[in-house]
């Protein structure tokens, strides 16, 4: 009962001193740029050459009619829809599979986590090679089967799943680690009680494990959504947005518009759209998560 009462020692001076570094950096490198980005988006603002003209919301009007913009939004959403559930599910399955003691399981954990430490350049290189229809890892297999090698990265329907596959391989480590952590905290007695209750493996998973780790599940999903919305490197390096813009993502379009076409104002308007989109999705997730908690 000791200490239960007060929320913390009242020490505003010390507290602000402790918070100062974070909020100073936060204000300069996150809050201010966010507002500056909005400011820039109200301009025809060129990257090089210093051309700036206030044009109000014209950039946003342009966005509204920009087919490629909507296409990239669609692609990005598609990518999120492909990766977030599969990533979460795969991470959970792997975590269940490698959770526990023993040397073998420790090695397996390392294997599945290891691919997370590679840089995006390496990951995309590896997967571009694996999936190449020309020199790819699967080419001998196709040849042996007498099938024309499938050109994954140039296939209109397979390109995005290919990028998702590479992303899955790259990114499953962190959510898996989070799940492993959560699994480690499920009280052992629960399993023992279930064992005595003759619960099947499936019902143990459904009735005990999943409810016990549902906060982690929510955390993983939110982190995944935030992360996958920002996809850039994989698409940029594996397909350059092709074929026919089927894999061009929003961030890629922002980058191209800003740094290739110098239209920084227009790119900033897109960045604001990305922000709003992600903000909305995160809120929705948290709201759903909270609702689930109340129920």
């Amino acid at each position, binding site marked *: 009962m000791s200490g239960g009462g007060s*929320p*913390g020692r009242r020490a505003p001076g010390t507290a602000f001193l402790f918070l100062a570094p974070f909020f100073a950096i*936060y204000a300069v490198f996150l809050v201010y740029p*966010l507002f500056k980005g909005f400011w820039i988006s109200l301009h025809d603002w060129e990257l090089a050459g210093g051309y700036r003209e206030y044009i109000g919301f014209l950039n946003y009007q342009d966005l509204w009619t920009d087919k490629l913009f909507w296409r990239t939004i669609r692609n990005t959403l598609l990518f999120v829809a492909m990766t977030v559930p599969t990533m979460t599910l795969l991470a959970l399955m792997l975590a269940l599979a490698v959770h526990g003691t023993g040397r073998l399981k420790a090695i397996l*954990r390392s294997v599945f986590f290891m691919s997370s*430490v590679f840089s995006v350049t390496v990951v995309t290189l590896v997967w571009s090679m694996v999936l190449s229809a020309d020199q790819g890892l699967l080419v001998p297999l196709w040849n042996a089967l007498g099938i024309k090698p499938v050109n994954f990265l140039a296939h209109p329907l397979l390109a995005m799943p290919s990028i998702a596959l590479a992303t899955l391989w790259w990114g499953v480590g962190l959510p898996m680690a989070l799940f492993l*952590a959560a699994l480690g905290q499920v009280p052992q007695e629960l*399993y023992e009680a279930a064992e005595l209750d003759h619960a099947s493996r499936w019902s143990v998973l459904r009735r005990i494990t999943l409810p016990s780790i549902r906060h982690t599940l929510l955390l993983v999903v939110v982190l995944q959504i935030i992360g996958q919305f920002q996809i850039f490197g994989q698409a940029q390096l594996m397909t350059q947005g092709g074929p026919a813009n089927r894999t061009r993502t929003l961030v890629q379009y922002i980058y191209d518009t800003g740094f290739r076409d110098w239209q920084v104002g227009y790119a900033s308007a897109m960045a604001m759209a990305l922000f709003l989109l992600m903000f909305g999705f995160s809120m929705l997730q948290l709201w759903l998560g909270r609702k689930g908690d109340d129920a």
Partner: protein
Amino acid sequence: MSTARRTGSARTTDIILLGLTVAFAILWMIPVVWVVTMSLKPNVELMRSTAGFIPWPFTIDNYFNLVKLATVPRWLMHSFIVAVSMTALVLIVSSLAGYAFARLDFPFKRTLFLIMIAGLMVPEQAVFIPLFTMFADWGMHNTHAALVAPRVAVPIGVFLMTQFFRAVPRELEEAAELDHASYFTIFWRIMLPLSVPALTTLGLFTFIFAWNDFLWPLVSATKAEMFTVTVGLASIQGNFAFSEGLGSVMASAVFASLPIVILFLIFQRFIVAGVAMGAGK
């Protein structure tokens, strides 16, 4: 899954599941093995065929060429400087703020916490253009500071540390207070040592993130001698493909990944343990 004794058939299922997992893990590693194999083959051979997992004919020329280039080691150095300083700063900044949020009471605490959490929803990609113009105005591009500074205030880091510090028994702090410790001493001598697992986890993830960061270094570090490994590799993949050949590209990938893989193998046992203490609550 459980230490409880299982029936015979359940044991069999366990073994089958484990077997499947092992098979999957082997599949998981194949691309990496293949890339390593290619990096050990002569380019002439690779022009003919990239198939096979045995590096024969064998060569280490691809690696020799890399070291000779001197740029790759330099990029590695930059990545290390950036990743290490970013990690250190994130840890300091996050734990200080996390401690204040977890254990101190002050005006506007809830509001500030919400403002901090809201930062989670601001994607870096949404602010990289204004950041780019800011650093341009300050003339600070192509410096380590430019690569590190925008990534230091990490809401998720503060959140993690706050959660962790909240779980530390309050009596420890009170005991320290009665032991004449100032808030800073409490933070430094009691809270920080206790949070080593959480710090390790946060540090590891920050390090990996910093090491793999792509978009920001791509636009901020435009001098070849200021590239990080990730950007540098991207820059030579195209160049190498034109001139040096596939083997060199693969060697550069393997070479650049080695330090972080080694680091990972050293620290991996902290990953899960640390997450368990930090985020699982």
